[in-house]
């Protein structure tokens, strides 16, 4: 509807006013004249307030890219408000999107400013906001423009960066610069020890207190600082459990994606190069990279992870990673081929850590003997067996618990990496 139309209220007032006055004059019904008198005023004022403009209504969102739980405001733009007294906006319900005011209906007099709607996505991914309808009403509610259907807006919702920090060092740093302590000596700031001066040592490395005390020149040795290549393998094959959004229960894919986002942020902030492999029907591979822009790219890729029933687990994980890389496999590990591929990766020389993201998704229901409950328990037993065998091959498996999840495992791997190896 693209014109000012009389409202049912105006039509009602006109009918009552004219009908009452006509009955009074023509039929001599005095009571009808008294009853119709107020409607004459309402009808006359409503008719007189007819706007003559053709307003153009658009809505815009303050932000199009948000993290889960954050919010954005939708603002209305009306190019010509002459004759408009009241504006009503009603937003449709969209899954995993909270609106304020609740139920997405808001109205205000134009004198108070155009009404705004606030949206807050509660789950990562691509979120379509519900269709919105806008109605403009003239003074005395006589005329209405609309309701107009406004184009839908979409939000790209990045996974929530769950608080994650780790003090553990990555086991096999292999880059040139970074925050991890190298196994080799070199020009860094991390203190290693003091030794006698040798030809070629830089003079600024001489430690004068020790040299004076011993009567012989001594220099300070330091460790070089290196970065590491960290790969995140995200299992997007299935989504088990029901997602309640950022405030509710987490499905396996929720846990996987949020854990991957947290790990990516941690490693990029540490100065490591991070790569991402999404194992799904339309799998994506983001090569190793560093810096805030790369982190943004990783989060964007994670926000686009979709599960599809037709997706099949891969026979091998093609990372193109060198032997020095650290690989975090984030998965509920429900598919044997993925477990086999992880074991192959471990054999190829990478430091592989499996982050178990099953969470509470397959916890037993209230009725333990019910068929779905039995099936879930059987599947869980099989999965646990696969994980035990994987651990037997030397791949640590840790359930995701947020901050510090990987500390112990990374310490152990770092220690193991420093042990001299005998190669055949």
């Amino acid at each position, binding site marked *: 509807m693209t014109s000012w139309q009389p409202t049912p*209220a105006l039509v*009602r007032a006109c009918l009552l006013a004219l009908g009452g006055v006509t009955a009074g*004059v023509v039929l001599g019904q005095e009571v009808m004249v008294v009853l119709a008198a107020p409607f004459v*005023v309402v009808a006359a004022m409503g008719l007189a307030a007819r706007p003559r403009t053709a307003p153009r209504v658009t809505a815009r969102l303050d932000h199009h890219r948000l993290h889960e739980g954050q919010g954005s405001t939708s603002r209305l733009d009306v190019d010509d408000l002459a004759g408009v007294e009241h504006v009503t906006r*009603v937003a449709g319900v969209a899954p995993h999107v909270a609106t304020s005011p609740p139920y997405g*209906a808001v109205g205000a007099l134009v004198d108070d400013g155009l009404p705004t709607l606030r949206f807050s996505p509660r789950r990562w991914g691509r979120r379509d906001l519900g269709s919105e309808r806008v109605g403009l009403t003239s003074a005395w509610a006589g005329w209405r423009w609309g309701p107009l259907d406004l184009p839908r807006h979409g939000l790209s919702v990045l996974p929530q960066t769950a608080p994650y920090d780790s003090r553990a060092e990555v086991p096999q740093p292999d880059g040139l610069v970074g925050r991890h302590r190298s196994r080799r000596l070199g020009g860094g700031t991390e203190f290693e020890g003091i030794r006698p001066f040798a030809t070629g040592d830089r003079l600024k490395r001489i430690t004068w207190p020790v040299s004076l005390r011993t009567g012989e020149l001594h220099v300070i040795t330091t460790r070089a600082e290196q970065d590491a290549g960290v790969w995140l393998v995200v299992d997007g094959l299935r989504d088990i459990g029901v997602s309640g959004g950022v405030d509710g229960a987490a499905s396996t894919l929720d846990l996987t994606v949020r854990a991957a986002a947290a790990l990516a942020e941690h490693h990029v902030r540490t100065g490591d190069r991070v790569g991402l492999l999404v194992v799904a029907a339309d799998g994506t591979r983001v090569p190793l990279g560093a810096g805030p822009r790369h982190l943004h790219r990783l989060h964007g890729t994670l926000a686009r992870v979709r599960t599809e029933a037709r997706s099949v687990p891969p026979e091998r994980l093609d990372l193109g990673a060198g032997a020095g890389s650290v690989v975090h496999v984030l998965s509920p590990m429900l598919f044997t081929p993925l477990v086999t591929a992880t074991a192959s990766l471990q054999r190829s020389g990478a430091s592989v850590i499996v982050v178990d993201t099953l969470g509470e998704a397959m916890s037993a229901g209230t009725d333990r003997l019910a068929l779905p409950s039995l099936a879930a328990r059987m599947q869980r037993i099989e999965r646990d067996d696969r994980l035990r065998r994987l651990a037997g091959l030397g791949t640590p498996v840790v359930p995701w618990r947020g901050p510090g999840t990987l500390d112990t495992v990374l310490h152990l791997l770092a220690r193991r990496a420093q042990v001299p190896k005998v190669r055949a």
Partner: protein
Amino acid sequence: MRPLASGAAPSALALRALVLALPCLALALALPEVPHWFVLLGVPVSAAVWARTPDHAVGVVPLVLVGGWWASHDVLDWRVPVVAVLLLAAHLAAVLAAYGPATLAVDRRLARLWLVRGLLALVPVPVTWLALRGLDPAWAPPGTWLAAGALLSALLLVTARLTRSEAR
């Protein structure tokens, strides 16, 4: 069929309750005289439908039924202005409720604005009531009824012209 969508605002529910109750109350003023069964049945049913969809044309039905019954009763006593107030209040409650769905809470400033407008619209009621009770139609100068009829016809034409939709 659910009467209203879930999440209806209390203020919107209150307005709908008024839309239902006020026409019935205007009819109840006739007690102890009992209106015709058709009016007795028609007013609450049509008012209930109107309360559910305040933006619907059905809203004219309870108002016409109540007004028609009082006109046929033809008693110009104190109850007639009261009925006029109740019918106008029902109309204005429906107007306020029709600004949006039931989930839209009523804006306080808008409600105040319509209260003032309602009081303004009620100004002609006592004037008309007193005029009709105090003046004798026989004293009216010749041509009054003809002029009134012509004015009414002109008003009808103007209203029809103004309310005609203009598709753009």
